[in-house]
């Protein structure tokens, strides 16, 4: 480090027609209490109002895609866990889906059900913790977050029981899942799912009618419908802007066409809509889970032939509706055991692109909650 003293910064007025103050440039992050990881926002402030916002990425660039191109297909499965580290199950599924599409593998019935159950459990815990983090950004001393995490622990226990790991499950395989559910798992899962609405009632009573949350979230960070479509926003952020687009309905991947559930839509596209859409989606997930748990058949859970294999030269794009949006894997095979090209379409990275549009003209405190309402996970943004 240089030892010379740095001159104190001078605050300047550039005189125009009327009195103007200098903009204050702040680098929020990569270590900041509310940037959800190592994200950085270079913010220019006029007083407290955001006049410019530049997102800076790459602080968690872990070479995921490059590593995957030097590993066998199955070898990348654990790495997908660490993309969006809240939702390892859905990441697994998206990757498995892409490989299955490329290799033409079929998935047994029971495995499809297990996948749906795991994905919806993932959605529940992701949305619950997101709402917790959002209120944390609003300054709620962590109380809703800790309530959400208390509930999340029940779901993590289920994951651990089935796969052996709390967070990095590495549970799905090409053509199924790694192992069958342990005995007693389904009963416990049923119990967790049945208890979940009580938690949600508590959560909604505490949060949705709170005057401070209403006044701070409503009409803040509005994402217009057109912009949301043009910027290829997906997931709850898109549906909060009033666009009816849910891959579970559009693609009907897996066996989602067998379940009865609805897609909640927002009208304004502000932080409050994004927050409410997630709460409503959790209710729908519980509905799906109840149906799936009631109708899950017996049978094999994976295709034992599909372990290490060489797909024919082909390309495939598998996508699912992850909790954060459309998560897609694009694979190009050249006939070797390793993919020639491996690309991830991360929902939170693409959703981040509209951050500046949503934050301009808002207060600095709003920028924080707008970021929180987008729901980013840096592992996925930077890969």
């Amino acid at each position, binding site marked *: 480090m240089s030892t010379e*003293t*740095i*001159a*104190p*910064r001078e605050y300047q007025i550039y005189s125009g027609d009327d009195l103007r103050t200098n903009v*204050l*440039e*702040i680098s929020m992050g990569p270590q*900041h*209490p*509310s940037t959800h990881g190592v994200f950085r926002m270079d913010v220019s*402030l006029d007083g*407290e109002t955001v006049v410019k916002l530049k997102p800076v990425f790459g602080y968690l660039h872990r070479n995921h895609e490059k590593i995957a191109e030097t590993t066998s297909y199955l070898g990348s499965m654990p790495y997908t866990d660490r993309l969006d580290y809240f939702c390892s199950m859905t990441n697994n599924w998206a990757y498995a889906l892409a490989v299955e599409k490329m290799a033409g593998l079929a998935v047994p019935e029971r495995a499809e059900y297990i996948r749906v159950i795991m994905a919806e459990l993932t959605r529940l815990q992701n949305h619950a913790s997101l709402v917790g983090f959002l*209120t*944390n*950004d*609003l*300054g*709620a*001393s*962590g*109380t809703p977050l*800790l*309530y959400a995490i*208390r509930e999340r622990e029940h779901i993590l226990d289920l994951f651990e029981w089935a796969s052996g790991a709390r967070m990095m499950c590495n549970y799905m395989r090409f053509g199924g899942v790694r192992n069958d559910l342990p005995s007693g798992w389904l009963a416990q899962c049923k119990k967790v799912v049945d208890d979940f609405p009580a938690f949600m009632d508590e959560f909604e009573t505490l949060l*949705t*009618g*709170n*005057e*401070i*949350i*209403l*006044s*701070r979230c*409503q*009409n803040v960070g509005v994402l217009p419908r057109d912009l949301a479509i043009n910027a290829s926003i997906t997931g709850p952020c898109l549906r909060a802007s009033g666009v*009816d687009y*849910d891959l579970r*309905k559009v693609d009907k991947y897996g066996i989602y066409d067998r379940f009865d559930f*609805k*897609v*909640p*839509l*927002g*009208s*304004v596209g502000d932080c*409050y*809509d994004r927050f*409410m*859409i997630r709460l*409503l989606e959790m209710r729908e997930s519980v509905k799906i889970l109840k149906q799936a748990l009631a109708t899950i058949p017996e049978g094999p859970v994976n295709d034992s032939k599909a372990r290490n294999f060489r797909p024919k030269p082909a390309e495939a794009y598998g996508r699912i509706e992850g909790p954060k949006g459309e998560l897609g894997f694009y694979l190009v095979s050249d006939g070797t055991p390793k993919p020639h090209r491996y690309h991830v379409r991360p929902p939170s990275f693409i959703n981040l692109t509209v951050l500046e549009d949503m934050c301009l003209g808002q*207060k*600095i*405190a*709003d920028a*924080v909650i707008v970021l929180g309402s987008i729901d980013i996970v840096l592992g996925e943004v930077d890969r």
Partner: protein
Amino acid sequence: MTPINPDQLIVQLTQWALSFLDSYPLVAVLVAILLSTVPLIAVFPGCFAITTWLERKGLARIQNRIGPNRTGPLGILQPAADGIKMLLKEDIVPKTSDRLAHFLAPVVLMVPAFTILSVLPFNRNMIPAAVDTGVILFFALGSVSTLAVFMAGWSSRNKYSLLGGMRAIAQMVSYELPLVLSGVTVIMMTGSLDTTKIVAQQQLSEWIQSSNAGLQCLGQIIGWNVFTPWGFAGFLIFFVASLAEINRCPFDLPEADSEIVAGHLTEYSGFKYALFFMSEYVSAFAINGLSTTLFLGGWSGPNIRPPWSDDPNALLIPGFVWFFAKMFALMLVMIWIRGTLPRLRVDHLMGFAWKFLLPLAIMNIFVGGFYYYAPRWHGIPVVGWPIGFLVMYLSYECIGRLNRGPKTAQRVYHYAS
């Protein structure tokens, strides 16, 4: 020898001790000063320690956790551990900071915080500085804390600190107005700025001096200002404004950790940070003590005369027990609020002060005046009470509605077909 009066035990002891020094007036004055200031400096840091423990335990309880439990029974020694650690921490002064202001800021915050405690009557005849203008002295010295926060924010040469300092000035100056105005109602009704007189006004002396124990108890409670319409509204306004004045949640914008890291405290470490921390809590005690004095009857509480005493003013339970009980009750409410509410935004915060609290406080002054002059039936405010209450309620509704606007509302969500 006067009979022992449990209520006045400490006062009597002090007088007894001072009686030995009658022949040395200068020494007596010095000893008297020490006897009234040293307890303040000893008791309130202790209260601060208990409160930090209560806060951590209370927040833990709210969040379904256990809270500190490794340091002594129930973790009661946790504040001691924190204190020892803070003392041992390195003290960092940033290279480009303004060293003098950086050093002085915690001192400037701490000195008035302790000084304003001296105008609070903790018990009958137990007030460290019995001044004629207690309330206004309190507000005057309390306003100095704004300066300290600004000094901390500016001298750190950190942008987050600067933002925190700017926020603090705007917030504290704005909330001083509703705070003082809601206090003005009480001053107006009492006709005095003297805190002891304000407490005495809230006690029905005839009832207390009667021989019926029930009446004695009731006489200590029924006269509290909080039971009048202007007192109730004033207490609520005062409490909310005091939350903002001492930067407590949900008005903790100057140190909003999710937005501007730690605001004006960002660059403070070690013992200076501990001083800041302590001063903030002592200010919280002081302002809760004042709201206890102004609205909650100060040191009066359900109390009876000791059977052996014939002094009509003697009481069984020392008054400071009630005083501290009320003060800690208000602190607990503050902790509860901290565990429950999210933070306001800057513009909402200013709007709340100027558009809601201030008109309501001014309205409260008018209601107080009306209450004072409204006809009474056998001394009972049969006209003033209901009409005053109605007026305050209506103005609360009207001003609230005018402020709310059409923007925030519960929404209805639709599902895609």
